């Protein structure tokens, strides 16, 4: 039973009680149950742990804490054993009995479950010594690893809702807005608009009611930090929203969540209910006269619906098409009322700014970009996962020091940031400090935080084509320039990758890109050419190789490559022959195999199946 909290003192008393109950020295096994670790079977591990504890009559002494994503999903399923902070990775169900008998009962470390630093070969025992974590500044994302997202008590125990109490009782709405302005917080959804200014415009806009919305549509394909925040720490987002609503003067909030995120919806729903039970949400919050309720709305899976006016159209039950922004949505948004939209991560920053103060916050980051940013470091990098770093850190530090470099001894080629609105950044710019303005200067964008690393095996023309194809598909079709322009650019890129490229194609792409950017209504069209233009800018030679030499240097574009078998390396094992779906490979015992180019459909099965690296792509 949760008793309503009627004032800040009630909340503090509850917190003290909860903290007392939570002995930091208690033996605890923390299991990540985020979507990544879930895919690797952490559910079975949790059941096995519970069963084993019971068998050994240890249920009372050892607690199992099921948390959201810790960020290092690459190594899942992850287990952290407290109080020692032992870090076990890639844990399997079969390991569970040994973890209990060796580590829990005898205190021994199980060597094979430790993380090995791929660079130095050194085994790492404790969570905070893992290089992936050590160089991060996890002020927003850090709590994910220690709290159970379905327990508001866990959140309150670590200081949750203290900022809300402070905002409601020690600050006026104007002071909150001033504080957020001073903090320098800029929107994490892509545009980087100053959050405090947005709140101020919305507060001052005439008309009632006002709406507050959380954008959890997370459309950038390759980014998942919003998902992990909502799944792993929903109250931090919620607390931010309540503070924002109070500052802006809104009584109704919405969270617009992608349909692909069922666990986020589930955990958020639980969070809403628990917050309401404590009176931290709903009517008369914390005994004041302020009411605020939040509804969850599911998205339909269209990228453009992440755009503010399109998102609001979908909330009104209309197809999600953007509208002209002569009038900004803070003045006339949902149901033509003043509406303040912020991204999940933006909201999660708010409690921290209020609790620790804007001065503290503004120390982090660079002149124009304050605080930290969570990136989804994925693609061709050793340590993939979610990383939270202070603004201003260099790309090199992220890719090499945190990410551990490129796997398989391959050569780094580019890092793509900003999703479909962003660009590809080459090796020569790896020392670029990462912040909103510097990324824009080099032709990319901060975007929502996707950071996709590419190596020599990725073709930049193919990547450009990939993004234009995505945008062509996702264009709502309202503006001719965006609809036809992305289509035409796609066709040109397709021709180039199919070996039909002509002289002048690159220049045509540049010209089209300019038109699409200038003549389109919303930012989808406005930024659509970025991936193409930035790859032309930094990787023009790859375009030239495709067009003039009909060659794909990375060995990706099917029409321009051939699979062959190196007879020196081939051991005639026959695996590729069996794997080939179109009988293109011939050979016999002890006879090196051969590929019939006429029959080959270039599926790549032979490369995958060969254990001797004998199949070559040219």
């Amino acid at each position: 039973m949760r008793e309503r909290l009627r004032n800040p003192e009630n909340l503090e008393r509850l917190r003290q009680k909860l903290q007392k109950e939570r002995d930091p020295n208690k033996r605890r096994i923390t299991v990540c149950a985020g979507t990544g670790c879930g895919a690797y079977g952490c559910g079975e591990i949790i059941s096995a742990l519970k069963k084993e504890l019971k068998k050994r009559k240890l249920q009372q002494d050892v607690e199992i804490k099921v948390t959201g994503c810790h960020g290092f999903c690459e190594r899942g399923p992850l287990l952290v054993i407290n109080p020692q902070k032992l870090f076990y990775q890639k844990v399997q169900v079969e390991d569970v009995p040994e973890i209990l008998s060796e580590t829990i009962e005898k205190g021994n470390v199980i060597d094979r479950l430790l993380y090995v630093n791929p660079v130095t070969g050194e085994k790492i025992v404790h969570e905070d010594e893992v290089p992936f974590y050590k160089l991060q500044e996890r002020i927003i994302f850090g709590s994910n690893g220690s709290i159970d997202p379905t327990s508001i008590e866990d959140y309150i125990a670590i200081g949750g809702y203290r900022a809300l109490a402070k905002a409601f009782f020690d600050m006026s709405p104007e002071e909150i807005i001033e504080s957020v302005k001073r903090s320098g917080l800029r929107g994490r959804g892509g545009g980087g608009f100053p959050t405090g200014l947005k709140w101020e415009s919305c507060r001052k806009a005439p008309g009632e009611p006002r709406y507050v919305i959380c954008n959890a549509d997370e459309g950038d394909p390759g980014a998942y930090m919003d998902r992990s925040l909502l799944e792993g720490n929903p109250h931090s987002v919620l607390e931010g929203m309540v503070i924002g609503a109070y500052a802006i003067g809104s009584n109704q909030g919405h969270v617009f969540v992608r349909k692909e995120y069922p666990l986020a919806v589930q955990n958020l729903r639980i969070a809403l209910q628990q917050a309401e039970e404590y009176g931290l949400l709903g009517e008369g919050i914390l005994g004041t006269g302020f009411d605020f309720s939040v509804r969850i709305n599911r998205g339909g899976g269209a990228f453009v619906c992440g755009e503010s006016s399109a998102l609001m159209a979908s909330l009104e039950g209309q197809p999600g098409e953007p509208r002209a922004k002569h009038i900004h949505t803070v003045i006339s948004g949902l149901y033509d009322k003043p509406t303040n939209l912020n991204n999940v991560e933006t909201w999660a920053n708010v409690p921290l700014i209020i609790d620790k103060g804007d001065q503290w916050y503004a120390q982090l980051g660079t002149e124009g970009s304050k605080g930290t940013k969570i990136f989804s470091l994925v693609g061709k990098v050793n340590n993939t996962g979610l990383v939270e770093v202070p603004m201003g850190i260099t790309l090199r530090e992220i890719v090499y020091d945190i990410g551990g470099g490129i796997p398989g001894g391959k050569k780094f080629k580019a890092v793509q940031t900003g999703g479909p609105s962003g660009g590809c950044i080459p090796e020569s710019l790896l020392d670029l400090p990462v912040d909103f303005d510097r990324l824009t200067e080099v032709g990319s964008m901060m975007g929502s935080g996707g950071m996709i690393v590419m190596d020599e095996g990725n073709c930049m023309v193919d990547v450009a084509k990939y993004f234009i194809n995505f945008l062509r598909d996702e264009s709502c079709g309202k503006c001719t320039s965006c609809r036809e322009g992305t289509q035409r650019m796609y066709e040109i890129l397709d021709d180039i990758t199919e070996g039909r490229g002509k002289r002048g194609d690159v220049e045509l792409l540049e010209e089209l890109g300019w038109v699409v950017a200038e003549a389109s209504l919303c930012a989808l069209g406005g930024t659509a050419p970025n991936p193409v233009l930035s790859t032309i800018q930094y990787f023009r030679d790859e375009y030239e190789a495709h067009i003039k030499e009909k060659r794909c240097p990375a060995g990706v574009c099917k029409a321009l490559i051939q699979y062959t078998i190196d007879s020196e390396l081939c051991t005639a094992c026959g695996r590729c022959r069996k794997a080939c779906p179109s009988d293109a490979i011939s050979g016999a015992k002890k006879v090196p195999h051969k590929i019939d180019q006429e029959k080959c459909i270039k599926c790549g099965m032979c490369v995958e199946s060969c254990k001797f690296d004998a199949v070559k792509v040219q």
Partner: protein
Amino acid sequence: MEIDVSKVDEVIDSFSGDLSQLIGILQDIQANLNYLPREALVRVSERLEIPISQVFGVATFFKAFSLTPRGRHQINVCLGTACHVRGGARILGKLERDLKIEAGGTTEDLRFTLESVRCLGCCSLGPVVVIDNDTYGRLNQEKVAKLLDQYE
């Protein structure tokens, strides 16, 4: 097709007939009936008191909705950026060849519907495939082919 209108009503009631939840309502109806039959859309328009054209507009705007019957199992192959650079297209190609359908298609025996999606939100596991509610990561062509047996 004859549909069970009460199922449609149940879903609408669970959202208290709230128009801002139209996408959620259509998703749950689709989850219940496997696709969105015309009759269901008509019922939604009656109950929410909005024109049928608006319901169709929304149902056809979003790729997640299907106006034709789907297979018993839904295979979603991720072609998000992170999965793309790790060979997601080859995984899709393998499934297309094995199931003898193209992305967007349903097998004749209605066993599988194969679709490509842009990012499933577990990019560090790429390439990723989701079958019904099960997520599979770190796949290659050989591994993905073996997954299908468990889905009848």
